[in-house]
Structures are given as C-alpha cells and as structure tokens.
C-alpha cells in the first residue's frame, strides 16, 4: 500500500512539474498568418519573435544592439557595411546560419517593409565573402542602416534559411524553420484553437542580460501554448483567475479591476512605450482636401477626451503632443500647438474661417474592435461641437480596412476619416511612421501629398548625425501638423495580466516570451 501511495505521489509530482514547464498564453488576437514578412499583423510579428532571430535588437532604452551579429564595421564614407555573425547560430534543422541566408532574408524583407524598401533605395548590392560574414554596399551614405536592421516591430527583418527566404515576397512562406529560441510545432498548430512552440535546446543565447528585443534569449519553459480559442474578454479573465491560463497578453480595460483584486494575479507593463491612437484624414476628397478644414478638425480633437473614453484608467494613458512616440529620441511637441494648445472655441473659429461648406464628414466606426471602437464616437461628437456635419457609419473592422483603401469619394463608397492605434516603434521615427509619409497616392491610406515633407524625410534618411536627425524629425512633424496629415490622439499602455508564479517578463514592443520562468 505504501509503495502504491509512493508511486501515486511520484506520478502527481511529475505531472505538476510538467505543468510548470508549459506556459499557457492567451494572445491578443488570432494567429492566422505565419509569415511575418508577408503581413504586418502583430500576431505574425510575435510568432516571428518566437521562431526567428534578428541581426540586431532594440533594447529597453531604445538603443540598437547586436543580436545575431557579433561585430560590424563601416567604411569611412559609410557606404560599405561589413557584418560578422556570432558563432553557434543554427537553424532548427541543424544547418548553420550563413551570410547567404541573411542576404536572402533581407532582400525579401526589403520588398515588403516600408523601412526596408527605403533602405534598399540606398543599397547597391550585398555579398557574403565568407560563411559568417555579409556586406552591404550602399550607393550613398544612409542614416538608418542599423535602425532598419534592428527594427523591433512589423515588419521585423527576421532571418530565415535561404531556401525559405527565396520565396517570392508576394507569396507566403510554407516552412517555419528559424534559428530563434523556440521551434514552431507545425503538427500541433490548429488554426483558431492553439499554436505550440517548444524550446530550441540548441539555441545559444547572448551573454548580455535580456533587454527589449536584444540581449540573451534564455528559455526556462519546455513548451509555450498560445490559446487561440479563448477570445471572449470575460472568459479570458475567468480562465486566468482560475489558473487555467498563465498570461493574458492584452486584457480589456474593463477587466483590470477584477484582475487586480485577485491576489494570485499580477498586472505587468512589459511594453512601457505602449501605443498611440490616431485619426486619419482622407486628403483626396472634400472637406478634408482643404488643409484649413483638416486643421480645424485637428484643433477640435482634444486628446484627453479620447483617452478618457477609450482607456478610462488614468494611469494607463497620457496625452502626447508628438506624432513620433513620446519619450523616444524623436518625440517632440514641435508644431503641435494647433492641437495641443487649442480648445473648442478656437476649433469653432477655425471651422468658420476654413471655408468648410457643410459637406458631411464620413467617419468609419469599427464596432467589433474594442480597443478603438470608442474613438470615432468621440471624434464625431467633438467635430459636431466644432461645427462639422458628421456621418458616423458603423461597420466591422474588416469593412473599415477594406473601405479605407478605396480612393473614391465618400458618396461612392469612400470615406473621410477613420481611427486606429499603433505600437510605439511603428511610428517612432519619420521613416517608419506611415502616417507622416506624404507621397500622395503612394502613401498610406489617406494619401497626403506634400513635397516639403518628402524632401525632409529624404534628408532624414541620408543624415548620419543624430542631432541633425532630431532637428529634421522636428521639422517633419511641424510640417505634418501644419498640413494636418492626421490627428494624434495620445498614448496608452495595455499591460499584460499573469499568474503570480510567472516571472521574468521582458519589455519590448510586443510580447516576448523568452526569459520567463514559471514556478
């Protein structure tokens, strides 16, 4: 009998121990595309960070740090960049990572990503003189080579095997072999149900402590399971309270009160720079084809009102006068007075003097995206108060993203305004930030056109002196406020919630699952 009890106790202990090694996560959305270069979806990016490694990372202080790269050098004229990969890098299939893999990966990324495309306008050619070395030859000096290679958010230049990276950029890859800290278990992937990653036991982490997407990527759990079926906000809270899952990536704002009240749950802000809300004007059609009308709308959009309605928790939001993320190198209030120092009276005056003719403003409101669904309501109310006629049209997010690509007038299925949110690194400099691009119909939805901005962005891309880059970023922002490319609506954080026995969270732009321990 004693032996039997002993055996049972041993089996139970083994089972508990096995559970300790499985990290059960509820991601912020569904994982439906596994190619982080083909799509800019954040879920694909997070999947990428599990499976792939990057040449450079961005640390907690937003500095670019080497990751797969051991050392690098530049020629005196900054036109030749030579990189040496660190030893011990290997793909999940056991093959070593070579310069050829890096070149193929960068070429594919450069065809999809906006910053990559910009970088490749400078690139003359690349080569790999030895298996662990690669070189980038530039036509002229470029001021953002390392920023591009260490770009922390979509699209991240993840390094894939050459045979995978040779897939045309407009086609999705079919093989998730990477060299990152986890291995994707394809056989256990059930779309809409779960995605499973196991520890890459052969991964050699850097010696530096983990910091952002840089530093040592140590894995202390055997297996990570993403629960893709659990998407009801209340069900997520219940599951965490009961200990059925370990981490909720992005709880709904109204869920924090019950979560914080439970002694077994902790709320951790692993993405301190957070997100920025914005409303985008369509520059092609009346009334927002008139800069003065856009300025009047901008003046009406007081950030505090949006943040209070959408986020609601005072500690989780802050007004930010910058179009580039506040508290990052290019964050600045330059030129923002039209919005930050305005009030409703001023907005009403601007509407009257703008030449606004009463054309209804069609605002698209997504009803199924809780994280931004209240922004259009607030915008509509503020704009009505300012003197605009507003046609607030409710639809699902899919319809918003479909309709926003239509360049037709609002009466023919087009639009005047929509609101969205960006994770900080996506907008923290003038090259990455799609909303300040002003190349007309080649720009991001809304299609602003302004030669001055584009000239300044070109200068920024070429500039290597940090102080001058900062000045150029300020000039770009001032001009963007002047022509009202869009309305920044302030910043917010959306901390994760986890069981108290989970520790070691790494801060970064998304959710990074190395260094995490589960006791």
């Amino acid at each position, binding site marked *: 009998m004693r032996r039997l009890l002993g055996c049972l106790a041993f089996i139970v202990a083994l089972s508990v121990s096995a559970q300790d090694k499985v990290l059960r996560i509820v991601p912020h959305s*569904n994982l*439906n*595309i596994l190619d982080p270069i083909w*799509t*800019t*979806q*954040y879920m*694909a990016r997070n999947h990428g960070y599990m499976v792939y490694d990057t040449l450079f990372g961005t640390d907690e202080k937003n500095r670019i740090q080497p990751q797969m790269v051991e050392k690098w050098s530049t020629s005196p004229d900054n036109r030749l960049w030579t990189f040496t990969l660190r030893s011990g890098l290997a793909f999940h299939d056991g093959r070593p990572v070579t310069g050829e893999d890096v070149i193929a990966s960068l070429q594919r990324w450069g065809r*999809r990503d*906006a910053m990559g495309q910009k970088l490749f306008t400078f690139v003359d050619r690349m080569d790999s003189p030895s298996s662990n070395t690669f070189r980038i030859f530039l036509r002229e000096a470029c001021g953002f080579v390392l920023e591009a290679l260490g770009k922390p958010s*979509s*699209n991240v230049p993840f390094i894939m095997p050459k045979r995978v990276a040779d897939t045309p950029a*407009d*086609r*999705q890859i*079919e093989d998730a072999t990477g060299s990152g800290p986890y291995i994707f278990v394809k056989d256990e992937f*059930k*779309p*809409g*149900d*779960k995605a499973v990653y196991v520890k890459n036991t052969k991964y050699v982490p850097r010696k530096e402590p983990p910091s952002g997407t840089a530093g040592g990527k140590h894995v202390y759990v055997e297996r990570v399971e993403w*629960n*893709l*079926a*659990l*998407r*009801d906000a*209340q*069900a997520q809270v*219940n*599951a965490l*309270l*009961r200990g*059925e899952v370990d981490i909720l990536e992005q709880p709904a704002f109204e869920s924090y009160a019950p979560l914080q009240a439970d002694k077994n749950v902790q709320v951790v802000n692993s993405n301190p720079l957070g997100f920025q809300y914005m409303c985008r004007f369509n520059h092609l059609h009346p009334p927002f084809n008139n800069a003065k009308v856009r300025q009047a709308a901008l003046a009406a959009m007081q950030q505090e009102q949006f943040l209070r309605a959408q986020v609601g928790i005072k500690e989780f939001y802050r007004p930010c006068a910058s179009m580039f993320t506040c508290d990052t190198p290019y964050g600045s209030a330059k030129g923002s007075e039209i919005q930050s120092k305005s009030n409703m009276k001023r907005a009403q005056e601007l509407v009257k003097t703008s030449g606004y003719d009463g054309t209804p403003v069609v605002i698209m409101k997504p009803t*199924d995206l809780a994280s931004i669904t209240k922004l259009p309501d607030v915008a509509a109310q503020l704009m009505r108060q300012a003197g605009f006629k507003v046609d607030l049209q409710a*639809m*699902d*997010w*899919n*319809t918003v*993203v*479909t*309709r*926003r*690509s239509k*360049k037709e007038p609002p009466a023919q299925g087009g639009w005047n305004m929509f609101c*969205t949110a*960006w994770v900080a690194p*996506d907008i923290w400099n003038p090259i990455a930030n*799609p909303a300040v691009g002003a190349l007309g119909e*080649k720009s*991001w*939805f809304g299609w602003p056109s302004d030669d001055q901005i584009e000239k300044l962005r070109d200068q920024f891309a070429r500039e290597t002196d940090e102080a001058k880059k900062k000045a150029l970023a300020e000039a770009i922002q001032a001009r963007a406020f002047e022509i009202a490319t869009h309305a920044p609506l302030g910043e917010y954080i959306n901390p994760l919630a986890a069981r108290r026995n989970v520790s070691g969270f790494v801060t970064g732009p998304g959710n990074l699952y190395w260094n995490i321990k589960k006791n």
Partner: protein
Amino acid sequence: MLVFLLLRLTPGDPAAIMAGDAATAEQIEQIRAGLGLDRPIVVQFGIWLGRIVSGDLGESYYFRIKVATLIGQRLEPTFALATMTILIAVLVAVPLGMLAAWRFGGWLDRALMGFSVLGFSIPVFVLAYVLIWLVSLQLGWLPVQGYVRIADGFFLFLKHLILPAVTLSVIYIALIARVTRASVLEALGEDYIRTARAKGLPEMRVLVRHALANAAVPIVTVIGIGIAILIGGVVVTESVYAIPGLGRLTVDAVLARDFPTIQGVIIFFSFIYVAVNLLIDLSYLVFDPRIRY
C-alpha cells in the same frame, strides 16, 4: 450560389485583413490578385462550382489548408457539444413534459411552464456567464473554458463539456418539454387511454407505453428542428467557453471574410440539416406504423 453571391456583395476584403494595418493599397492589391479575387465574379463562381462538383470545398485563404480538413478538425467539439446537449435536453425534457401533462394544472405543470418561459427568454451568453460564475468560480467544480478531445481522456472530456452542454440545453429543455406536455396532454384525452386505464394498467405504463408512444411524432419533429437550431446556438456557446468547434470557425471565417471557409461550412451545415430531417422523417415509421412512404 446564393451564399456565394451574398458573400461577394458583403463589404469587406480578406486581403485587407491579411495584409495588416501598415500595409499599403498596392500590397493589398497584390494579395487580392494572389487569391484570385481580382477576377470577375462569374469566373470565381465557375472555379468554385467546378471544385464543389468534384467534392472539393476549396482552401482557406488564411491557413492555406483544405476547408474539409478545417471542418474535420472542428467537427469533434461541435458534434460532442451538440450530442450532449440533445441528450441532456431529451433526458430532462421528455419526462418533465410527460409529468406536467399528467399533473395538468398542478404545481408541477405551472412550474414547468414558468421554467419554459424563463428558458426561452434567457440569452445563452447570460446563462453561460451565470453558470461559470457559480459552478466554476464560486464552487470550483468545473473548468471555465476549453475543450479536451475524447482521445485525451474521457473524464477530462466530460468535465470540460458538461457546463457548455447544460448551458445550451436549457432552451431545448424548455422547447421539448412544452411540446411533450402538449402532445401527451392531447393523447391522454384519447379513448385508448381510457381503455388502458379501464383495463387496470399501472399509470406509468399508461403514460409511457400508450400516451408518450402516441405523442412521439411531434416530439421527435421538434427534436429534429432543435438540432438544426442548435447550429446557431453553438456559435455563442463555443465563443463563451472557448471551444474550438464549427461555430467558432464560422465566426472567425465571417469576421475575416474567409470566403471558401464560410461557403464550405454553410454547405456542410446544409448537408447536416437535410440529413437530420431525413432521419427524422424516417423515424416516423418507427414511432407510428400507420405512416407509409
């Protein structure tokens, strides 16, 4: 054909969702072309119809796997949930309805009618949250979410399925109990019941063997209709309890405008609907030998 056309007329573009928020209009167009969505609707319809005729439901835009495979992956949870729901509903509702008819006008009858009104009125998601709060969070008896496949352990499978099935069964208990009550009540007024009682048969035998058996046809019909309606019910239940079944697949596919998956699921549901109705019609032969086809 109707579903195909309706989906194409609905606003929304799968390519826009697939591309992500930072994608340009040009990238979205590339994806559309890759999916064949830039072709005329007639051409798209022809391709789809050709595949359907050869038994191919197509391939999901997102996961690039066969829709039939996707449905296959989701079939077990939904089938298990629906079966257990109907099982609970029939086992509870038929005896309750029969007893209510037997005690017509009494407290049991009134209580059952009250429960029926409540069962019809309470939204599934409200009941789900109440049950989760009570049974899982307060009493800690059952898990709050998830599904465990039967192959991974029958006890765990059952443990995860009870609460969703009970949630979903309430409306069917209300529906079936009412119909059973009405049918049995009608049967109890027939001459053959009076004859059976006059012969001195035990009351339970009169109720089950004579009244219920003769009232079976409308009950079976409503159970059949219930199975069809159940398809709508599982969508909500699967969402609240995080069950990766066909309901959840349908919601995801609709939100993402995954046209092949939506079309495939609807065809599959239509097939199930027709099959269930056929089985119900055939079962009449068993319950009422007077019926001939």
